[in-house]
């Protein structure tokens, strides 16, 4: 069957090439319909409990999921007429931006405050009148610092920073709004400095940069691979074919994805790079073709013989890769599923091209150019079989096998220890480089103010007016103090704080009264006063309409998922120590969402990956009709993964999203090498039944293809080290490492293993 396919392609070269191009155009036709989705939240389906509950909390407490924070700081302190004027002006301008939720924008000039005067209270917006005289400025300072709800939110402890909190509509683009805010503050100008932070900016900036970087690095790494290919084969047609196969599979699978109406997500944006990597498998065909052509000197025969020999390993390596990726679809996370299935599809396209397009191109190549390219290669690599150093390497792994096996074993044990040290964490802000504006702003705002990340703990009861009970308020207050013991918690705010503040204000600002009052009616009437004097949403944000639920705001100084995990545990411990039968706490908010999202995606990825490992192992056993061969050819993949993640553990890099994506890439590559190696080894053994000779030959000849493949691939990915987003840098560096490791594992460790177990391995039969 397979023979017939490539036989047909050899006979009807033009038809095959034409057909391929036509189908490619059909898929390209879909591209204008492209939809992009950069919100990592959409990794979880809308029905996932955390999203449902977050939406409910937003609704119950009139909250907005997305808030941008603008920090304004002045080294001389912000309480001076000029800076305050600017704050008012900037606020006015920001209110005009479409997508900004006007009624809930908070800044010094929109917040109301209750001030104690000799003859009563005064209710007014904080910046109702810009203070001009020294006395007015001093009063302003006093007012700000006397209200604990303003400190760390609207004024830093050192008085040098204030902030504007800009909620945006769910449909608005955080980066677009942020760009407009940047323009406004640029006009406002120095001496103040301005900082922008918040989840929507990080997310949308990451999204837009991600596509830019993918758009830049896919072609650049393609080009680097082209140059490397040319240096290897000295033949433009070959370079073209190889890249052609990559492009065709990218166009087909992306075209299909877009055509079927899926949005291009963070994961699927990486498809081009993955497919480019997988398509390097065709190098094995060219590699063998060069050897064959030298032997038989007849293009047609060389093509057919090459295909006869390579068809099977190519088939199995692509099939295994495809199955591996397709098995990602066993997980629960939709974009990961989509990614897995479409990369699997792309892999099949590569397989199809290997049988049709590649032989067709080989057929239309001029013999003279091939001859010329071969001549060069001979001079470069030495004489005859042109693989001297590889043969030596093969010999080495046979003669020093016990050293190699022991070293490998020690390395693996060492790595397993490393894996046990892995720290799971995810922090989207750290996806930007340390010197990037986003990360710098985030760092400064977290230092100066309460924290840019936000979590909620919702106290949920069935009893109406439960929250008005003084005991409930005290219970919340104690929890707040506990949470604040965590050094990364900057500030907590709840309805208890408002009640305490009003109590104090009503009692001539006497700090003694900054406590929860004794009776429920008192609480109710204080809250009523607040409703009469503040923005309604100030209260709505912390307590629901029937006073059944209250919401504790916890501002975090870090976007680490790990911090949130600690808080969730702290709350659990608190409720265990002091049970409250009528009510329970539930976490929510962006920090909690990030934690859940991180865990689900990460573990979803890990479990899908484990599933695909098992599948791949099964497939290998089936392919060789032998348990032992299956396991042996599985070892390079396993060793590579263990060592890579061992390294992650040892160097203390957080195990995050990008790192977990890596595992799937290794799946695509390491297994290919082993399959090519073992299949060709067995073929060789059929011809000359001498294990050692066959091993040396395999390391030398198909081994060259493996080395070429690995180098090509490592180079292509190494380019990503120059990216501006850390996940790409991570993927670039680790991919290059994975390539080196898996080729070394295949060419050095695998032969040593085979020789070691040769007595119990059958070299005959199989496939």
């Amino acid at each position, binding site marked *: 069957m397979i023979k017939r396919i490539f036989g047909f392609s050899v006979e009807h070269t033009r038809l095959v090439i034409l057909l391929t191009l036509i189908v490619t155009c059909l898929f390209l036709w879909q591209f204008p319909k492209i939809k992009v989705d950069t919100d990592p939240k959409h990794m979880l389906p809308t029905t996932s409990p955390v999203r449902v509950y977050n939406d409910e909390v937003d609704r119950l407490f009139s909250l907005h999921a997305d808030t941008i924070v603008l920090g304004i700081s002045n080294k001389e302190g912000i309480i001076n007429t000029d800076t305050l004027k600017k704050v008012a002006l900037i606020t006015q301008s920001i209110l005009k931006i479409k997508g900004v939720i006007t009624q809930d924008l908070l800044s010094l000039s929109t917040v109301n405050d209750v001030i104690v005067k000799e003859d009563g*209270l005064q209710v007014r917006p904080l910046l109702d009148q810009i203070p001009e005289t020294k006395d007015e400025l001093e009063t302003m300072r006093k007012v700000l610092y006397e209200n604990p709800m303003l400190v760390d939110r609207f004024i830093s402890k050192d008085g040098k920073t204030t902030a504007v909190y800009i909620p945006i509509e769910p449909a608005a683009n955080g980066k677009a709004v942020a760009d407009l805010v940047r323009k406004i503050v640029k006009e406002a100008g120095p001496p103040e400095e301005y900082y922008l932070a918040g989840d929507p900016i990080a997310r949308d900036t990451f999204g837009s940069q991600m596509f830019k970087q993918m758009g830049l690095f896919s072609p650049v790494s393609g080009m680097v691979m082209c140059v490397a290919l040319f240096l290897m084969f000295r033949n433009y047609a070959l370079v073209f074919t190889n890249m052609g196969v990559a492009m065709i599979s990218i166009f087909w699978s992306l075209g299909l994805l877009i055509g079927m109406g899926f949005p291009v997500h963070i994961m699927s944006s990486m498809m081009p790079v993955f497919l480019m990597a997988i398509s390097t498998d065709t190098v094995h065909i060219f590699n063998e073709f060069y050897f064959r052509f030298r032997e038989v000197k007849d293009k047609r025969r060389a093509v057919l013989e090459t295909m006869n020999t390579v068809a099977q390993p190519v088939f199995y390596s692509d099939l295994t890769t495809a199955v591996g990726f397709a098995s990602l679809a066993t997980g629960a996370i939709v974009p990961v599923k989509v990614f897995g299935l479409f990369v699997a599809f792309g892999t099949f396209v590569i397989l199809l091209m290997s049988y049709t397009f590649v032989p067709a191109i080989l057929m239309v190549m001029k013999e003279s150019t091939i001859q010329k390219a071969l001549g060069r290669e001979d001079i470069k690599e030495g004489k005859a079989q042109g693989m001297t150093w590889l043969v030596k390497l093969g010999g080495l792994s046979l003669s020093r096998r016990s050293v190699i096996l022991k070293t490998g074993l020690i390395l693996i044990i060492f790595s397993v220890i490393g894996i046990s040290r892995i720290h799971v964490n995810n922090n989207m802000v750290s996806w930007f480089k340390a010197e990037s504006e986003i990360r710098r702003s985030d760092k400064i705002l977290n230092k100066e103010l309460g924290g840019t990340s936000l979590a909620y703990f919702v106290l949920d009861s069935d009893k109406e007016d439960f929250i008005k009970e003084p005991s409930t308020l005290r219970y919340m207050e104690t929890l707040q103090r506990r949470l604040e013991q965590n050094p990364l918690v900057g500030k907590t705010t709840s309805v208890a704080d408002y009640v305490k503040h009003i109590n104090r204000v009503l009692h001539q600002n006497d700090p003694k009264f900054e406590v929860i009052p004794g009776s429920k009616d008192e609480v109710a009437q204080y809250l009523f006063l607040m409703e009469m004097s503040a923005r309604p949403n100030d209260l709505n944000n912390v307590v629901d309409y029937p006073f059944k639920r209250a919401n504790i705001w916890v501002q975090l100084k870090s976007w680490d998922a790990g911090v949130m995990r600690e808080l969730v545990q702290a709350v659990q411990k608190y409720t265990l120590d002091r049970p409250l039968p009528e009510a329970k706490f539930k976490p929510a908010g962006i920090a909690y969402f990030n934690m859940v999202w991180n865990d689900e995606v990460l573990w979803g990825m890990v479990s899908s990956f484990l599933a695909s490992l098992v599948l791949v192992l099964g497939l290998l056993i089936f392919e060789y009709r032998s348990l032992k061969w299956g396991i042996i050819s599985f070892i390079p993949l396993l060793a590579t993964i263990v060592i890579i993640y061992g390294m992650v553990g040892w160097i203390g890099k957080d195990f995050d999203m990008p790192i977990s994506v890596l595992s799937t890439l290794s799946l695509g590559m390491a297994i290919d090498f082993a399959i090519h190696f073992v299949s060709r080894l067995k073929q060789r053994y059929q011809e000359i039944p001498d294990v050692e000779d066959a091993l040396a030959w395999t390391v030398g000849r198909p081994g060259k293809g493996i080395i070429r493949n690995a180098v090509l691939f490592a180079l292509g990915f190494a380019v990503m080290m120059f990216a501006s987003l850390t996940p790409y840098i991570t993927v670039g560096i680790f991919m290059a490492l994975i390539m080196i490791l898996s080729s070394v594992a295949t060419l050095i460790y695998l032969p040593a293993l085979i020789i070691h177990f040769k007595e119990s391995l059958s070299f005959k039969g199989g496939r």
Partner: protein
Amino acid sequence: MRYRKALIMTLALGTIWTRASFSGDALAPGEIVRACYARFYYAGDDMKARILMKLIDKGGQERIRDLTMLRKNSAEGGEQKYFIYFHQPADVKDTTFMVYKYPDKDDDRWLFIPAIDLVKRIAANDKFSSFVGSDFTYEDISGRKPEEDTHTLLREEDVDGRSCFVVESVPQERSAYTKRVSWIDKENFLPLKEEFYDKQNELYRRFEALEVKEDNGIPTATKRVMQNVKTGHRTEVTFQEVEYNAGIGDDIFSERYLRRPPLQWIE
């Protein structure tokens, strides 16, 4: 004195009305708004009303404000005094609130908090903030001086079968809105609908008078709703009882009655 004022007002309105019917569109938009201001916020010499406010959030959850409002004018377009007694919610019962409204300066307010038996004077310049947590601002409750905006007559239009002037008002002085469009009943000069635009020039609040009844020949919008179209929150107001020119004494509006509500007026 009361009699004289009522007479003046009738005369004034009469002139406006005659001019409106005789010369059609010739009535200046500023005069329309001034007439509306007088009719809507200064009706009668005094007023007593039992008002039920329902604050309804986007999800349909409700909070209730059941109150009695007493109002007394000193001169049309001039000073006003408000006394508000809260019947519900239950835990704020007996809370009272008093407002002296001055046309040219900030209000004076007093609040009595029964739980701690305390009267607090509140100086406020927050005309644009919410009245007791509702979608109405203090300004919506006591009126915005027509002179603070410039008015343009856009067109005439029917609202629920009543012909209205449609007037656009653009603030000259500080304001919470950037534009207000009012549908003012040509006959009784009550605003049947108002739309408020925010700083992004988008519609954000809509007022509607859903039911108008007369007492003593004075028309009152007895069912009103203010909806924030951006947040989905709305406030429904029902005037359960209204009485004009009931003869409320000036002494009611004092700290003494804040502490001991005048039972005959709040029933």
